[in-house]
């Protein structure tokens, strides 16, 4: 097996990292591993756009040979918002063409994000225009957060689980406030 970085030397060092429950293996030759370690990058491997692009490339290549219609469609999908295809995203260094791309390439982006981000659902600030304040959106998010909390506890990621629990409490309060408003 060749080194992931120089693609020339035989890989003799194999590093397995588990991030958000997803495992990632890096195969490096001795000199590239030493270089990475010297620069303090070893711990950050597998945490970059390159991996995401690798995933995009893999999905796109697999799709060309797969009889599965859903996956094959992913490789030829065109975003209705900007006309971008998967190959265009790859050539732009993993940049998307427009907000709509997040829906068009949802499955691929979700897979790629799990290797890059600490969570899968947004916490934090929302713009005033966000529709998330409606009852249906709050209930949908509550359901999703409850599933996420179970998964986080199972993976023993307690710091993230605590944040998730806080958001669940907040959502319940917001729903209760909506009910209160209705009763008045």
């Amino acid at each position, binding site marked *: 097996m060749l080194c992931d970085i120089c693609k020339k030397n035989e890989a003799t060092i194999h590093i397995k990292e588990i991030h958000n429950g997803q495992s990632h293996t890096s195969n490096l030759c001795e000199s590239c591993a030493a270089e990475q370690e010297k620069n303090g*990058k070893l711990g950050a491997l597998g945490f970059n756009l390159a991996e995401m692009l690798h995933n995009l490339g893999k999905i796109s290549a697999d799709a060309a040979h797969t009889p599965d219609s859903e996956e094959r469609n992913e490789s030829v999908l065109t975003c209705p918002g*900007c006309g971008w295809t998967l190959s265009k995203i790859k050539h732009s260094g993993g940049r998307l063409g427009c907000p709509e791309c997040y829906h068009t390439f949802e499955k691929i982006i979700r897979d790629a994000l799990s290797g*890059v981000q600490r969570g899968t659902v947004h916490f934090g*600030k929302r713009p005033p225009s966000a529709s998330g304040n409606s009852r249906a959106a709050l209930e949908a998010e509550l359901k999703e957060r409850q599933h996420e909390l179970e998964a986080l506890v199972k993976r023993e990621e307690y710091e993230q689980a605590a944040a998730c629990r806080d958001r669940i409490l907040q959502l319940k309060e917001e729903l209760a406030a909506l009910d209160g408003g209705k009763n008045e």
Partner: protein
Amino acid sequence: MSESIERLLKNPVSFLTDAGPDEDIAISSRIRLARNLAGKPFPVAADLDLRREICDEVAKAAAQSGALGCPECFQFDPEEMDAIDREILFERRLASRDFLARAGGTRLLVRDDESSSVMINEEDHLRIQTLRPGFQLDTVWKIIDRLDSELAKQLDFAFDDRLGFLTSCPTNVGTGMRASVMLHLPGLVLTGQIGPTIQGVNKLNLAVRGIYGEGTDNRGSLYQVSNQSTLGESEEQIIDRLNSVISQLIAHEKEARRTLLERDQYGLLDYVGRSYGILRHSYKLSSEEAIKSLSGLRVGVDMGLFNSVGIRKVNELFIAIGAAHLQKSAGRELSPAERDICRAALCREKLKHS
């Protein structure tokens, strides 16, 4: 446009010259937020006309909301500026190289004290930034949160209930926030602890980047620590995590300096003295040597070895020795060799009475 640059150059660089918490080790704290307009292609997929429209829309929103003190804020159109003026914006940390290299349809809005700015049509439609001195991410968050809310009243930002703020690169999706603190860590570098420290911080899912080079080869011992992940935690949680790691880094750096002083006092004094000597007596000074020497001088200033040189004078020199700033103060384009001569003259002059 040129008038604006001249006016900007009269400003003291506030993130370096104002007092800030833990300023002996933490140089500055910065937060940037990536935002995009709903229903519009990201800058990478937008044509020139659309990018120009977006510039006008964002500038109008800033003027109407009074964000950044607009319409009285600085407004720069990089397309109309010469290379040196553009480089000034980079050296003052107001714009990225990527932004300045873009072909048209970009604009930069800057608050008159340079504490906050908005790059329009960098990788995202808006890159909002707040930059303050020292270690104070909580305060920086309060400032930028307010600024973002002011703009959000006028602009409809692309947002998804599940994924948060939608950004051109999915590595920024969610909060769209990158928070960072620039640290001066010569103690950890000189005691050989910097490599393991960087590895430790990386394992906590935070990034450490050398400002003038990576890892142990870093000139100037300046490092930027920032969050990697933008999705799955709130802005406050990300900042809390950074705060706790950076507080520990500051404590480690202080400990390393104490160790150096105890084990090799003359070695440390020699390092500071030689750095000062180079800055005070050179007639040709490359950017690399100047940065290295300023880093050494900064250690001496922190140790109280210099009466008339303050930490902020040293900070200011880090900007003033930049190629574009030197050429601006000379009033003409300088060759690299001429720059080295001007750089040495500037340092001699600034440290004359020390």
